[in-house]
């Protein structure tokens, strides 16, 4: 049985945080019509992921439940919800903002940590090795630089500097 939701000054704090995060500006436009949820390809396959529910939880200030859930990571960024939302809530951007906030609080799925590491080390998700360039040459494709140090320099100066 669920606990009653506590509405107090902390409720507005999480709302405010999302409103101030780039992409979260239109959060308060939502009037819970459910068009997003009816359009979502992920929800069609798995009812765990429910965009309308997530927005509602944010508006009720349920920061802990939202950030520690796995469902914010299940957005496939297809933009169907954003396109069809009658209120211009920009759900995909809000989901992105929620994920960004989660990462700021130290929550990051292991696969994303690994991807960040790969990008810091090589500049790409998949490192280009000699083998790849040889294979490319056989197909008549031009050679690519193997490792680029620029992204380590860029990422180490930003909010993801501790993700290694």
């Amino acid at each position, binding site marked *: 049985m669920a606990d009653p939701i506590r509405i107090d000054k902390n409720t507005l704090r999480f709302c405010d945080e999302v409103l101030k995060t*780039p*992409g979260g500006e239109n959060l308060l436009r939502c009037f819970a019509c459910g068009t997003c949820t009816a359009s979502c*390809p*992920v929800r*069609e*396959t*798995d009812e765990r992921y429910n965009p309308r529910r997530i927005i509602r939880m944010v508006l009720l200030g349920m920061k802990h439940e939202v950030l520690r859930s*796995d469902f914010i*990571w*299940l*957005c*496939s*960024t*297809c*933009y*169907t919800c*954003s*396109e069809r939302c009658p209120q211009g809530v920009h759900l*995909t951007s809000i989901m*992105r*903002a929620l*994920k*960004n906030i989660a*990462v700021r609080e130290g929550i*990051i*799925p292991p*696969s*994303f940590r690994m*991807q*960040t590491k790969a*990008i810091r080390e090589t*500049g*790409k*998700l*998949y490192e*280009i090795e000699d083998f*790849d360039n040889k*294979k*490319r040459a056989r*197909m*008549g*494709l*031009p*050679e*690519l*630089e193997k490792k*680029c140090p*620029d*992204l380590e*320099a*860029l*990422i180490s*100066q*930003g*909010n*993801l500097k501790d*993700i290694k």
Partner: protein
Amino acid sequence: MSRMNQYSLFLGCTIPVRAQNYEASTRKVAAALGINFIHIPNFTCCGYPISSLDEETAEVMAARNLALAEKAGTDICTICTACTGVLTETAQALATDEAKRQHVNERLKDIGLTYNGGVKVKHFARILYEEVGLERIGAKITHPLTGLRIALHYGCHYLKPHEIYDGFDSPENPHTLDELIAVTGAESVSYMNRMRCCGGALLAVDENLALKISKEKLDQLKELGVDAIGLICPFCSVMYESNQKKIETTFETMYNLPVLFLPQILGLAMGMDAKDLGFNMNRVRANAVLEKIGIN
């Protein structure tokens, strides 16, 4: 800002390593239609995987690539739609928001680059449709793919979010890729929910869920009896092609459904050799497709 018909080709992370057939066929078709690609060997990740973690970092990553293209004096041609989305969105933001551009340039200074805001980003399919045009492509068709039934998968980032794509096609009811298929003589098969996402972004988060999402479309297309899926994104191909066998084993089903990239389809109709179009690298053998159109 580009000289006519000259673009820097942005390959992203996946294509150079996992979809060389897509790159090869793109280059062949581009060359035949007079599109010149500048090669920038040190392009880096567009920023898409990082945007879920930190939007600002992703923007700077995208801006680095835009700065390199600007330095080369060209616009960017993309062939992965995720890259198209991030680069287009960033290019647009930096073209209009001066404060943001200044902030990004502060960061780019660390790696000796600056971006002044002039680069336009377009997916190859859009360039074919808008810049080359159906008539010029039609004139190059020597081997019509009569009788071939292709199920197009537009994917998500070619047209959405609509705000950044100048309204060149409709996100709900698009037609640009259908027309590119029609010009080859093949049939673009209509099917329900064809704009549904492949689920690729979820592969690293919940593999089973991602496979289930892709499975739905494969089931549908198997029932329709199409000859092949047509794609414009390498990650959709990771789902529908590279993972086709895994879906078959996990869910005890069978498809043997060839997955082709749009330039491979165009190239065949333009009389190009299947090998040159990278058909050897297609993981689901496309022999049935080649036989059907009279190539062996």
